[in-house]
């Protein structure tokens, strides 16, 4: 016990050693591993062959598609504008492109912690949203006016997602706090509101917003059909998100609020500085999840007559020569969805990691 040799941690096993241990530990393991690997390589080869090697790329070569074994990307080359922009006037596509870039930049920027204060976030979204709207809607600064019925494709998908989040997020916070209110009337009413909208299918809410509200609401309150649908969608989103946030609030020990009370903090100070930051941390995975679900669910608005990206994709292969190539169109759209959703969930994972530091 007197020797002062420094104890080193045991060396980590090499990659090969770990591979050997986990995949080739017994004869049966070997067989299973080899079979699986072979299957995997075969599948991968098929996909690469279809997508890259045996595929036709340019629109002019569409005649070759019939004979080719691979993907016919000509359909994307020829029709991508319909997929991305829907019925938006052809000469104005640059506006839609720019608007999408602005909105994506706004979303990305709000992921940086530097923007995480009510004023900065508010200003950022006001600017981002304003620029997006002016570019899309036009009718000022010499841009020709384009009504929302003609918006479509990716820009419409992003617009719906962004505005549902923008309206839904603050609303969800209000609902979550309301449901936990000490005033029984407030708590009951928000509880009823949340449970009512959660018990309805999204489709019903969107139909009601698009078709029924015009009979109920006075003219000046109706707005465009797109806005009504967005408000309906946002309420639906907020009710689910409110429950996620409430779960996060519920998990905070009561001592936190008491410490705030004894320090003399008022209700809003305790809510904004102590409760909400911890609630967001606690339920970050489900909050991000709700955003992911919402992004994918935007496609449901086709049913009430909007040309979001999935519907415009449908239109893109709907005419004559392109009908056989719907798979390529859906793969293309799938990749766009994947890019958005995957970055959303990676960002969520990054946030979780970052915030774990604070909890120690």
């Amino acid at each position, binding site marked *: 016990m007197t020797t002062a040799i420094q104890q080193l941690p045991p060396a980590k096993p090499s990659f090969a050693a770990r591979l050997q241990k986990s995949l080739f530990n017994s004869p049966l393991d070997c067989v299973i591993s080899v079979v699986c690997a072979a299957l995997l390589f075969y599948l991968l080869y098929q996909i690469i062959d279809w997508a890259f090697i045996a595929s036709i790329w340019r629109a002019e070569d569409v005649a070759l598609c019939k004979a080719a074994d691979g993907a016919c990307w000509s359909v994307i080359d020829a029709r991508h504008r319909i997929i991305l922009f829907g019925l938006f006037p052809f000469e104005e596509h640059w506006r839609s492109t720019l608007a999408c870039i602005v909105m994506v930049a706004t979303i990305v920027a709000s992921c940086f912690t530097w923007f995480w204060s009510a004023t900065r976030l508010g200003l950022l979204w006001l600017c981002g949203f304003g620029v997006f709207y002016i570019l899309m809607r036009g009718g000022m600064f010499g841009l020709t006016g384009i009504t929302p019925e003609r918006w479509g494709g990716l820009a419409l998908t992003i617009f719906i997602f962004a505005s549902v989040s923008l309206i839904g997020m603050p609303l969800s916070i209000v609902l979550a706090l309301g449901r936990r209110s000490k005033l029984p009337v407030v708590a009951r009413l928000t509880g009823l509101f949340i449970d009512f909208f959660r018990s309805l299918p999204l489709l019903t809410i969107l139909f009601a917003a698009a078709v029924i509200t015009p009979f109920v609401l006075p003219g000046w309150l109706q707005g465009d059909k797109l806005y009504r649908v967005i408000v309906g969608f946002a309420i639906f989103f907020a009710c689910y998100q409110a429950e996620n946030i409430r779960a996060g609030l519920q998990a905070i020990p009561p001592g936190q609020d*008491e410490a705030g009370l004894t*320090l003399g903090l008022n209700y809003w100070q305790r809510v904004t500085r102590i409760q909400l930051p911890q609630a967001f941390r606690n339920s970050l995975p489900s909050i991000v999840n709700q955003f992911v679900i919402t992004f994918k669910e935007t496609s449901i608005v086709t049913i009430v007559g909007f040309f979001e990206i999935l519907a415009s994709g449908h239109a893109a292969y709907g005419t004559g020569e392109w009908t056989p190539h719907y798979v390529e169109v859906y793969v293309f759209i799938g990749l766009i969805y994947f890019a958005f959703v995957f970055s959303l969930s990676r960002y969520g994972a990054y946030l979780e990691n970052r915030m774990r530091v604070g909890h120690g």
Partner: protein
Amino acid sequence: MVENPSVTAITMQGVNKWFDDFHVLKDIDLQVAMGEKIVICGPSGSGKSTLIRCICKLEDHQRGLINVLGIELNDDIANVDEIRREVGMVFQQFNLFPHMTVLENCTLALTLVRKKNREEAEAIAMGFLEKVHIPEQAAKYPGELSGGQQQRVAIARSLCMNPEIMLFDEPTSALDPEMISEVLDVMVSLAEEGMTMICVTHEMGFARRVADRVIFMDQGEIVEQNDPLSFFENPANERTQLFLSQILQH
């Protein structure tokens, strides 16, 4: 914080409290002078926590009068706010804000309630962190500290608000034995500076050393109160004797 026995810090008169049908506090009468240090002890469930939580209105009392620094504690929000600003509280579970650094924990109320700017607030906070001997931990998060360090941060956080009265609810019961003294040392030096203190604790060494008065509670009543010497040497009530024999056994 000058000792001035003529001013009462806290007056409780006939205070009663119920949790539903359960009578937790029964006719509590208590006067605490400025600068006085009081230790409250008693068996579990006797209402010690409830009593001191009533003083900063973390619990409502249903009957009786509570007056803190000449301000009546009632449903008037302005009064409650004013009392809370003058009364600091330290909890058994520390209740530090886990998402803020130690320094941010201390400066939060200074900036929001006392309206100090950031430099002033940080200077004050660092002063109190030095006083509890952990200025070097200022940039860490509570989760990275030991229990004793966390409790000292909690004390510093309360002191930042420059309270007239400090309430402690079993500040050392959640700590490992080797960390208890580092917290008690801080409390002793606070007492020596003349802070008005009410401590719920079973640290009898601490009670003997700093308390002006020891109060024994049982079943929601103040059973006995006396100066520490008489309290420990000649407890009058047999419930007190039983309790003392139990906790002083080991």
